């Protein structure tokens, strides 16, 4: 059992950033959590009433709630979860994707949201059927931190995020041509032979690792060498 928090001299009606609301229950370590079932996150109920035709199903696994939503309503739902004061999901932990071995199972894009004032964790899932375009809305307009998370998801799975400002590879180099490494149809050692992989990797220029944004900032401060400035003037898109 957890001890009660000591009384503070803070006014009771002010919510400090990052702290729980005054009316929120004292956090306790949950015990005997069932594998399936159990109490749902209250936000799942709110989502069902707010978006009745977009919530496909709700699963509770090990006490964590996953809400499967329609892929075309992602940005709308995430924006509501972020803006609604009764939800206040102010923190996006992760954007990733899951592909299953069964060919008929859809590829699933997963968002992990956390509400700091209410101490809630919510997992959103959107299923993209295989064979169709792997496209989903970017949540970058709501969470700026989604930028690199979505780039990684694009790099590893090939999911395209509509509305992302700069959707490029982030882990693999930009000239990587073998595909998306975490897809199930990708062989573990890559598609090319070792010598060909090495040849392509060594052909890359190790200094061409800057994004367009970094290059333009450096250009504004006249920090660029003349040859790179000339290449930028010529309309090159990446630093390569």
């Amino acid at each position, binding site marked *: 059992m957890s001890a009660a928090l000591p009384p503070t001299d803070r006014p009771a009606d002010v919510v400090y950033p990052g702290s729980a609301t005054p009316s929120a229950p004292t956090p306790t370590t949950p015990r005997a959590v069932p594998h399936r079932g159990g109490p749902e996150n209250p936000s799942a109920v709110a989502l069902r009433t707010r978006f009745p035709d977009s919530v496909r199903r709700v699963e509770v696994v090990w006490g964590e709630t996953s809400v499967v939503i329609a892929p075309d309503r992602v940005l709308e739902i995430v924006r509501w979860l972020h803006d609604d004061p009764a939800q206040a999901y102010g923190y996006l932990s992760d954007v990733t994707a899951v592909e299953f071995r069964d060919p008929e199972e859809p590829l699933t894009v997963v968002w992990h949201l956390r509400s700091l004032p209410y101490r809630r964790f919510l997992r959103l899932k959107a299923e993209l059927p295989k064979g169709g375009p792997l496209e989903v809305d970017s949540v970058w307009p709501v969470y700026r931190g989604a930028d690199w998370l979505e780039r990684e998801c694009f790099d590893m799975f090939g999911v395209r995020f509509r509305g992302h400002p700069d959707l490029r590879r982030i882990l693999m180099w930009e000239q990587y041509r073998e595909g998306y490494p975490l897809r199930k149809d990708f*062989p573990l050692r890559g598609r090319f032979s070792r010598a060909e992989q090495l040849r392509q990797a*060594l052909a890359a220029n190790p200094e061409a690792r800057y994004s367009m944004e970094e290059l333009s900032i450096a250009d504004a401060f006249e920090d660029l060498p003349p040859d790179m400035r000339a290449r930028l003037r010529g309309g090159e898109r990446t630093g390569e």
Partner: protein
Amino acid sequence: MGLTARPGQLPVPSAAPAGEPRVVSYQPQSQEGWIATKLDFLVNWGRANSLWPMPFGTACCAIEFMATAASKFDLARFGMERMSFSPRQADVLICAGRVPFKLAPVIRRIWQQMPQPKWCISMGACASSGGMFDNYAVVQGIDTIIPVDVYVPGCPPRPEGLLYGIRLLQEKVMRERLSDSKRLRREMEPDPSSRLYIPPPAIDELSEPFGNSVNQTRSGV
């Protein structure tokens, strides 16, 4: 008699008979005199005991490397206390950890920036052979990119292992001769078409799949 060796026969050290002076062989075809060998010794002694390492640490081996450089194992005993984080002031590149393909052009550029004479230690299983990372992202041994002098096995090697590798490198440095410098100190020229030091079939052979890896297509073999 003495230690002179006939061609095609190993020199057998035999006890010199009493009264006969002990003769040490001299090989005139080597064109090395007393001054050259002593100069070699002096230069090599200086080089071997002031190897400035360029640490290229990418993974857990770098932690062991830091432990080696710290006070308990104390790399400074071997004249290596000066970590050179700039390749132009370094003598030995110590690659500690796995090298992904994205870093392959970087490590080659660092190697090319180091001035001669220079040596390379490949520390750990990943740097030497790719280790357990037999996958799409990791170079299967840095000897496919740059020449390596000493391989230190282990996952990661203990600091004693790295110190042993450094001692081996010092022995190798001590055995160098000025007359070999044209051969030893030559920069390796990569093959102009593939930009690789080693022919592609040899790289495929070196990075053969092992364990339960899937089969890999070979490049034209």
